[in-house]
């Protein structure tokens, strides 16, 4: 009941925020140099004024800015994000075609980094001052400090080129015509390298944070109380230390989850993963502003959604946070 009310409130605020983001993005794009019509015309090999005028008219680029903005906003209200200048397809169709691939990649990476990071962090905290604990921390530092694209390239060199275990790029084997389980397996194989690469960085952060947070929690008075009860160290670690240590992790995980749409450009490019990141990169190159605005909208919406989810999870995890405070 409480949650229903809270969610309604939050969604109401989200719509306002989203509206402001749309206006802001639109104005930002207006400031960008380059005329989309000129680029389109240039690619078509035409330079004649009449053709340019026609293009501008077709996309409404000849209208004053405020009219363009109004048209854009009223379009979004009906889930019409306009046409991609370049590909002559509705923006929504383009984004929806790429969305599953991106969510599959980033979602896998998210779950992977969170799960492995917490486990590694908890292990490192339990083995503090032991070689195994230090090893975990050293590895985490390496992954944290190494640039993502380099890790990706090296992974390709090692696992695809040298060992030949995993495919180097793409989402599935082109022309194999797999269906059902075979297709899932094929996609899974293609997923391993990009997902792991993407996960490593956040995994390193979760590892370091979980460890620090657990070491801090283990100093708390309630841990001494738990020991005085005669509880086994394992139970104390899990029930008393880890549970309290996870609270700051939730905040961080919410931040990472918000990056799921827009945060994989580099990985998608290196592994030729047909996702939103690459779509965005191409749109940028081609001054495909309508498409770009559409992608911005969806990534902003996702950030807001995950913010709300994070808040709810935090409330579930920590009874001290009451509604509205």
């Amino acid at each position: 009941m409480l949650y229903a009310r809270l969610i309604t409130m939050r969604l109401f605020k989200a719509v306002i925020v989203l509206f402001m983001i749309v206006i802001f993005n639109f104005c930002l794009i207006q400031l960008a140099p380059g005329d989309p019509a000129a680029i389109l015309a240039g690619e078509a090999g035409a330079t004649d004024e009449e053709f340019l005028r026609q293009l501008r008219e077709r996309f409404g680029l000849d209208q004053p800015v405020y009219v363009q903005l109004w048209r854009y906003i009223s379009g979004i209200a009906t889930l019409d994000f306009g046409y991609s200048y370049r590909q002559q397809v509705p923006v929504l169709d383009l984004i929806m075609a790429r969305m599953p691939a991106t969510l599959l990649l980033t979602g896998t990476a998210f779950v992977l980094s969170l799960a492995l990071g917490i486990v590694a962090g908890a292990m490192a905290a339990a083995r503090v001052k032991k070689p195994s604990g230090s090893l975990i921390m050293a590895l985490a530092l390496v992954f944290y400090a190494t640039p993502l694209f380099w890790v990706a390239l090296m992974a390709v060199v090692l696992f695809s080129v040298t060992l030949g275990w995993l495919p180097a790029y793409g989402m599935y084997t082109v022309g194999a015509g797999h269906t059902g389980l075979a297709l899932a397996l094929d996609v899974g194989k293609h997923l391993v390298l990009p997902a792991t690469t993407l996960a490593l960085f956040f995994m390193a952060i979760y590892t370091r944070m979980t460890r620090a947070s657990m070491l801090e929690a283990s100093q708390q008075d309630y841990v001494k109380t738990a020991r005085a009860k005669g509880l086994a160290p394992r139970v104390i670690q899990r029930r008393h230390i880890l549970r309290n240590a996870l609270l700051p992790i939730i905040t961080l995980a919410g931040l990472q989850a918000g990056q799921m749409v827009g945060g994989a450009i580099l990985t998608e490019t290196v592994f030729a993963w047909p996702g939103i990141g690459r779509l965005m990169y191409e749109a940028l190159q081609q001054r495909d502003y309508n498409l770009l605005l559409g992608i911005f909208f969806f990534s902003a919406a996702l950030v807001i959604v995950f913010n709300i989810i994070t808040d709810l999870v935090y409330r579930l995890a920590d009874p001290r946070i009451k509604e509205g405070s």
Partner: protein
Amino acid sequence: MTSTTDDPVLSIRGLTIALPKGADRDFAVEDVSYDVARGEIMCVVGESGSGKSMAANAIMGLLPKGVRAVAGEVMFDGQDLLTLTEKQHRKLRGLRIGMIFQEPMTALNPLMRVGAQISEVFEAHGQFTPRERQEKALALLEEVGIPQPEKAIRAYPFQLSGGQRQRVMIAMALALAPEVLIADEPTTALDVTTQAQILELIRDLQQRRGMSVMFITHDFGVVAEIANRVCVMRHGRIVELGEAEHVLKHPQDPYTRALIEAIPSDVIPEARGAETDTPLLEVAHLDKVFRSRGGLFKPSREVRALDDVSFVLLKGETVGIVGESGSGKSTLGRCVVRLERPDHGTLSLSGIDFSALKGETLRRQRHRVQMIFQDPYASLNPRTRVGMAIAQGPIANDVPREKALAQADELLELVGLGGTADRFPHEFSGGQRQRIGIARALALNPELIVADEAVSALDVSIQAQILELLEDLKQKLSLALLFITHDLRVAAQICDRIIVMQHGRIVEQGPARDVFLTPREAYTRELLEAIPGREHELAEA
């Protein structure tokens, strides 16, 4: 020094516990021997750093990292606890020896329901089914006197008061009916009336269950209240050991005598009264309501922290504000220094309405009222040298840097810490830090000092020294002092007048002597009766 009893449950012999290298001394406790007899309450008394809790931690196998018992033995039921493996020790903890701690606010896991935390004790020792555990937990909560146990069992710790949490801790420690209960300063963080209730509960349970209690405290008042025998410790050694009655009346060791004397007695100094009758601070009809911000769909909650509070403080006078937590006494202090803005009412400082000042004018006037805070550990910036910490106020008020620093040196001299200006706060003890806090307040030449529980966090002997210093400075600099405390006895020692507060209202005010010796209101009497050890006659100085 040894004292044997007929039937010891716990028997500590020649216990020596080594501190890690680099500590201020080699041994936390050295060659300590005492018994805890069946069915008695043994009080271990000492000031901070005396090593009084160390033996208890050794008994529980909960010594901090790097701290080890290097000699001696702790016999319990025919086995030496110091030789147990961690696993063997774990079987004893909670089952045969229970323990409760000082800070009820932090000693419970904030994310677990009370019932689950109690059930855990049974779970740890593999007893009963989950359902039976809940039933037992409920019975325990009832036994320790928590109101509405069916509700409390589903509550999270933050929903309970400090006293209730300490009751939960006791319920947990007693869950498996241990033979020994170790209580490490269990009432230090509580209000006097709550403290009295918890002490009574512990004594009551101890008698009903016939268990032994090892009670660690710094407060001889508490000793007088509950102890059968007492062991006084200093610098890791026992200085006196014997029957509580005997030690309290005829302390042999000078240190024990000093500790007992340091407790503010019932002998109230003659009222000195203010030298003048010019009012310095006139507080009239002060109101302050705290609202938790309501949302669009949520009603806001109101707490009336100050309700029509009026009083006058004369020049050079010391007025004590006494009350329990939640009485509004700290809010009053914060309003007087204008850290908080009252909703209604006036606060005039020699005729200027201090509560109406704003912005730059307020900033210019702020130096006239200064505050000394409760926690000397938290109120000094750990990365600022103390000389600078003191000089910052004057510098902000346009005193040249060199001059302000020179003044800081003089002030440190004045509070007995000469030549320490370039040290950092962590190099000082709690009492010394409070002296620095006083010097900091004095640096701005205030007319009025508000001391909010300024001695509550200190050991009794240090407390006495700080009170003396305050009194001395007050005379020398003709200051007025607003002394906020929960401790009526301390207030009676140094205040000219006392104001008793409850629920944001002034319950009683009058000369210290009258309020302390012939209180008019029932609540004041209640507060006085709750002071531990009051009806016992402590040793004559």
